[in-house]
């Protein structure tokens, strides 16, 4: 199976290169794998995730995602790469002045799909995350768990190659968290989507085989 993520000798910094968070790290993630990255607060989990969708550039080393070298990527290429990713955030990052349905089809809107296709897909995706009746509501009218399901539906909208999730259940109760994990497991299992989740705690009930990396002392280590 081909690598979707390939990090070699990767170093990441923030604060204009003054603070090093990850140093000389090597890891790969293959197509269809489910990966958890855990670590204490401030260890650099979110920084690593941001680097995977090109928000932060590698300070040194190589980081290749979906065949794109993120250390030397042009803005137009990065834009294109992001259209093949689904990203889920702890704070949902939904557009509050848009309806739930419009939020869900954002990736399709960006890809230039017709309104008919967008409407059909919105209906299908919202049915999948059991939010059909909320299609015309606005995000702030929904509970946290429901908002995150909208976030998951948006991430799945374009059948992405890679789903990146930053503490997707960090703000949710147990019931809502389980629903989110189920949805992500399904995506990985049925669509062969690679899923990489940054979290402080791996869910207790998780049926899929997964890989687990831990960030510690500026290094990334696989837990076997």
């Amino acid at each position, binding site marked *: 199976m081909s690598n979707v993520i390939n990090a070699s000798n990767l170093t990441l910094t923030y604060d204009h290169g003054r603070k090093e968070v990850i140093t000389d790290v090597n890891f790969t993630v293959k197509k269809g794998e489910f990966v958890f990255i855990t670590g204490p607060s401030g260890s650099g989990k979110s920084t690593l995730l941001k680097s995977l*969708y090109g*928000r932060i550039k590698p300070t040194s080393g190589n980081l290749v995602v979906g065949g794109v070298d993120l250390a030397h990527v042009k803005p137009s290429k*990065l*834009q*294109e*790469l*992001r*259209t093949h*990713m689904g*990203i889920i*955030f702890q704070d949902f*990052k*939904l*557009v*509050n*002045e*848009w309806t739930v349905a419009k939020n869900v089809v*954002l*990736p399709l*809107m*960006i890809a230039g799909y017709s309104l008919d296709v967008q409407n059909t897909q919105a209906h299908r995706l919202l049915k999948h995350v059991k939010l059909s009746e909320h299609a015309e509501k606005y995000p702030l009218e929904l509970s946290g768990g429901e908002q995150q399901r909208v976030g998951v539906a*948006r991430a799945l909208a374009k059948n992405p190659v890679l789903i990146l999730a930053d503490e997707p259940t960090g703000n949710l109760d147990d019931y809502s968290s389980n629903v989110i994990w189920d949805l992500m497991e399904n995506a990985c299992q049925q669509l062969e989507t690679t899923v990489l989740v940054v979290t402080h705690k791996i869910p207790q009930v998780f049926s899929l085989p997964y890989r687990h990396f831990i960030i510690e002392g500026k290094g990334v280590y696989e837990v076997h």
Partner: protein
Amino acid sequence: MKYIKNHLMFIFPLMAILLGIEFYLVFDRTTDTYEKGLQEGYSMLVVTKEPMKTDAFRALNRHISKSESIERNSIVSRIAKGVTKEGEAKILKSLPYFYNVHLNEYISTGELIRIKEDLELSPLIKKVETFGSNYESNYRLFSFIKFTLKIFIGFMSVVSLFLIMKQMEIWKYAHKERMQIMEIFGAPLMLRSGVLFKIAIIDAIAAALIVSSIFLYLKFYWAVHSGIEIMIQNRDYLFRITDIGILLAAALLIVIISVYSVVYSTKGVEE
């Protein structure tokens, strides 16, 4: 209500700038005509030893546009009343040649002195009278009015620009989150800023049309019924159809610069 308020917050300063531009256009057209009138009405008196043609005067200074000879016979007949025909002929023979010399533009008094000096360098020219003091007071008054109006228009534009910048800050705050989310999912710049462009272009068209309407009203209604003679005579300078294009182009340019400033200031901000 909030929607209308958001639009008006941008339309008003934009209108102030457009009013400034239109005032400038009107003022420029009016002063241009007035300047032409002053320039055409003004002439200097040149006394020469020999007859001279316009080209000869122009060779001495490039600002000279034409010269008109003052009939010598009429001067003699006025000053030689009761004098015999021979005496009259002698006076005419000894009398120099007089010319009204016109200029091609409305120039400063400094330039006027230079023309006088240039003309006096010619051995054929005996005397030059510029009527400088009269000219200078007209020129100074005219320059002062021009200067103060330009300062006023400039000041108005600067204040309006500050208001637009303030509105940009509000836009930035209102649209930042959506544009950043769209950026994360790979939306190109034009798609991210589409909503802003739509609002801004609507506002630009609205502001240009409102300002045009104000001036059309002034031209076709107010000026006609004002009873002010100079206003009725110069009605055509108040607004021209081409001004709509100028105002629209200026408004669109301002909004495009404004929108791009918002789009670029929200780009790449850490989420």
